[in-house]
């Protein structure tokens, strides 16, 4: 899956949890929680949605590494199984 596709999936998962968020307003390198009004329950739901969409289960110990949209996408790109080709 391409980086662009993963980013699209992240925004789609976020829209399910926080429908009022305008993806165009998100700053890539600013913590998500500083930009979006989501509580710990919403975060958990967001992670479950990401797991459903991408098959990546993010453990609690990695929460610090996925605080901004850019870092979250980087993290997922590294761990998402590549589709197509020989992979």
């Amino acid at each position, binding site marked *: 899956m391409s980086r662009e596709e993963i980013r699209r999936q992240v925004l789609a998962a976020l829209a399910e949890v926080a429908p009022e968020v305008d993806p165009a307003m998100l700053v890539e390198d600013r913590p998500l929680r500083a930009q979006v009004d989501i*509580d*710990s*329950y919403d975060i958990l739901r967001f*992670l*479950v949605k990401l797991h459903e969409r991408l098959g990546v289960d993010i*453990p*609690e110990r990695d929460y610090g590494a996925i605080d901004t949209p850019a870092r979250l996408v980087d993290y997922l790109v590294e761990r998402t199984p590549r589709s197509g080709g020989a992979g």
Partner: protein
Amino acid sequence: MPSLGADMVAGTLVEWLVTVGQPVTRGQIIAEVETEKGVVEVEVFETGAIEELLVVPGTKVPVGTPLARIKTEGGPAGALAAPSEAKPAPAAPPVAAAAPEPAAPAGRQRVSPLARKRAEDLGIGLDRVVGTGPAGAVTVADVERSAAPGVRSQAMRRAIGAAMSRSKREIPHYYLATDIDVTPLSDWLAARNASRPVTDRMLVAAPLLKGVALALSKHPSLNGTFVDGQFRQGPAVHLGVAISLRGGGLMAPALHDAATKPVDTLMTELTDLINRVRAGSVRSSELADPTVTVTSLGETGVPTVFGIIFPPQVALIGLGRIVARPWVVDGALISRQILTATLSADHRVTDGHEGARFLTTLDRLLQEPERL
């Protein structure tokens, strides 16, 4: 008309979701009722068939008024939501407004008359409302769900204002706070979650709610209602959980029997409750009987919250954000995870002495998370 909170005196029947003759099963949602807290789905308590609908949509009736008659298998028809009321005249004809509407042509949207009126009032185009009623009909709740957050929150603000004004007017609050070292709880939770998939992960709210419920069961004078000049102890700890809504406002439906349920069960039920409250489908049984309320600010809020008691309850427990703080253990200064727990309680029922004992019990219980 079911009581959706001990302070509720009347409600407006918004819409029937069933028609005369239709079979219903216990727990099925058969009507929508509007209260100060918003539109609530009413569940039926019997299995049988709707024999008669007694209240016309749009009518405001006192709590205890029979809404419908249900014929149970092998038994006589019972009046819904009015176990102690006299049965209405059996000769009353079925309510005209509840008669089945003619089938709409395929592709045309079915909209109940009240939903249409509500949509007009709110200035909402029906073409962007998704119907969830019988045969996909648009109901009032559907319309309200699609209302702009601003419009929806106006009614919610009024309801919160009314309840909180009454509380401040009538309830002599006293307030206590204590800092609790929850490092053992945080460690226990991290260890538990490390070995589980994200779908089975527990939030700290679940063990905290269990601790509060257990502590309340040991201090029952904080768990109950104050009605007609008298304290009535709750039959169990039905923990009202304050849940904020997107776009403003909040609701505090009950997690029933919270003191006796395993933490995992509480987590599952809490998740379900938050989902449904935010989707606008809270059930009548959940608003009816909280005996106490907890407000928890979670991981993003501030460290301390002093709540206002939700009448006619007599206590509210506030849980702030857990923060790392300097803490003295055995004469040494170290960093620990600290939770500030507060109690707002009704001085007509308890004194600060009992309140302090409750917070001390809560502290003690949270030191042994594996026993919660």
